[in-house]
């Protein structure tokens, strides 16, 4: 009896929390909901999306009401959360992790009047748009810096899940590194989590113990970079500028800037001009930015800036041929660049990555 009342109280407390946020507004207000995979305080991926949400509030003031649900597990749980947001009168819902893709599509079919925006996915619908950043451009620059900075010629890469987005980042990093130092190699450790500071840090320690002197990560916490700082090697920030976690170790950081996109899409909903689309913005559009180049010699910083400029102007494409995969087979011929299909579905390691890609 007692247990049942406690659970009931818990359940109602949870749902009231979401509903209260939903019902507080009149219908004239445009309501924008966000589903996050991590906590807004991760200081990485989710933090940057939440900055985008705050940018919407700042831009539109009382005209827009925003809500968010954080630390939502990918999979069935997320479907429940997305449906709840859609059912509680949200006009536009951003789902900000790859694993929310199928649940977003599924819920969108049931709520044709609600607009959905899914980050980093590849499935669109009449009311589902997708958007992502060309973070591999930043990874390539980071690779160039690593190739010039490393003494052991070994990069330690803390990775989350073997999805195309992450594999693309690993390959871009190595292609950048090898463009200046053909002896570079990458060791990858998969932690099978987007966010577990302890495990991310442990993975970084393992990689350093095995000889890596550059640490980079495709997970969401600053822990690997902090390990780099404490062990006296170099590293990169991920999603946000993480300089204060590693003032001596951070060479640069790949910064996601969602703010202009989020503001633009919210305005489209208010004006009634929203249409489904698929955008993939990079350095040129400002969705990908680089933190200041620090802790490196001036000539390396100069080279990094030149690389950044070359990618921005379109003179340089990180996936320009010739590119060989691990078996030595040429997958992109000289004079060509990898097409969108190959980039979006990347499921192979380029030559120089150690180990084999988990299937």
């Amino acid at each position, binding site marked *: 009896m007692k247990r049942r009342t406690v659970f009931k109280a*818990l359940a109602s407390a949870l749902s009231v929390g979401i509903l209260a946020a939903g019902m507080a507004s009149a219908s004239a207000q445009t309501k924008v909901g966000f589903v996050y995979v991590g906590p807004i305080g991760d200081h990485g991926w989710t933090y940057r999306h939440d900055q985008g949400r705050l940018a919407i509030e700042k831009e539109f003031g009382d005209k827009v009401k925003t809500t968010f649900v954080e630390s939502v597990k990918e999979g069935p749980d997320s479907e429940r959360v997305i449906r709840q947001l859609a059912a509680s009168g949200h006009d536009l819902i951003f789902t900000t992790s790859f694993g929310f893709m199928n649940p977003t599509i599924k819920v969108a079919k049931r709520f044709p009047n609600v607009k959905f925006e899914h980050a980093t996915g590849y499935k669109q619908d009449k009311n589902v748009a997708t958007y992502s950043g060309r973070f591999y451009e930043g990874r390539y620059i980071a690779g160039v810096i690593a190739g010039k900075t490393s003494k052991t010629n070994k990069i330690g890469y803390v990775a989350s899940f073997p999805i195309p987005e992450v594999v693309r980042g690993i390959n871009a990093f190595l292609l950048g590194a090898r463009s200046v130092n053909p002896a570079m190699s990458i060791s990858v450790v*998969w932690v099978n989590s987007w966010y577990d500071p302890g495990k991310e840090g442990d*993975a970084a320690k393992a990689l350093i113990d095995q000889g890596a002197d550059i640490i980079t990560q495709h997970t969401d916490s600053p822990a690997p970079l*902090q390990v780099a700082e404490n062990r006296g090697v170099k590293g990169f920030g991920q999603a946000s500028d993480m300089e204060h976690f590693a003032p001596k170790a951070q060479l640069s950081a790949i910064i996601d800037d969602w703010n202009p996109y989020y503001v633009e899409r919210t305005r489209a909903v208010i004006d009634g001009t929203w249409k489904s689309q698929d955008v993939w913005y990079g350095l040129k559009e400002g969705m990908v930015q680089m933190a200041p180049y620090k802790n490196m010699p001036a000539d390396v910083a100069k080279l990094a800036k030149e690389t950044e400029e070359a990618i921005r102007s379109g003179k340089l494409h990180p996936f320009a041929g010739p590119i060989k995969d691990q078996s030595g087979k040429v997958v992109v011929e000289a004079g060509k660049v990898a097409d969108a299909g190959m980039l979006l579905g990347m499921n192979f390691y380029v030559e120089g990555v*150690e180990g084999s890609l988990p299937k």
Partner: protein
Amino acid sequence: MDFVPVILTVITASTPLLFAATGELVTEKSGVLNLGVEGMMLVGAIAAFAVASTTGSGLAGIVAGAAAGTVMASVFAFLTLTMLANQVATGLALTIFGIGISALIGAGFVGFALEPLPKLAIPVISDIPVIGPILFGQDILVYLSFVMILAVAWFLSRTRPGLILKAVGESHDSAHALGYPVIAIRYAAVLFGGAMSGLAGAYLSLAYTPLWAENMTAGRGWIALALVVFATWRPGRVVLGAYMFGAITILQLHAQGWGIEIASQFMSMLPYLATILVLVLISRDKTKIRLNAPQCIGKVFHAAH
């Protein structure tokens, strides 16, 4: 391959588990099941981090972590021992509450970095190759974790209060009839468990990854709970379990770096698989598990006047 750094990393991965499991062991031995370990760890972690980063003293942080864990445990103790609420539900609620309140307190501390706890290096001895850095180059909390589990082992098997605590866990009615203050003893055990969970959290935010990140325990509280069962409520096996768990966690990361071709998803699963496997092996011997499991665990005690 130099294995010293590997062992050092294993120690850091195992210490928080050892702390939390030591505390929960004592709590459960008194007949109380507190599922709020994860929540108490988180509150301990943020309290330790907040105090250490404002005062600049790691020691003050450690004390604050233990104190915060104790406060959380006292809420649990009041609800379950005085108000007689269901322990399982209250423990789960405590974890959810802990996740929320630690995030709330921690909002102002996101993005701060902290110097890790200093290693207590003893001149000369710490410089001995291999055993020097492993045995004599740790931070204070690592040593404390061993002191605590040894003290608990001694307390539970060699002292009168320890035997009384176990008697309360075995049969609270008999202990009550003998005139022992069942509720007071359980309060003490629950508060001790809270303090240990707080220390586990403090270790995470002060030494393991010296930063505050929401939900940074990432399930370690639940692992500690499993470890107590895994250890069949025996202190020696708690140490074994915590270190085995830590070792598998770290070694699977190294194996990937060495290029051993096993699916990383499988590797990530290994620690849990090992726990289940050992659990099954131990549970086969019914007498052994019955001998050690507190008979009154999770049961509400009504004093019959």
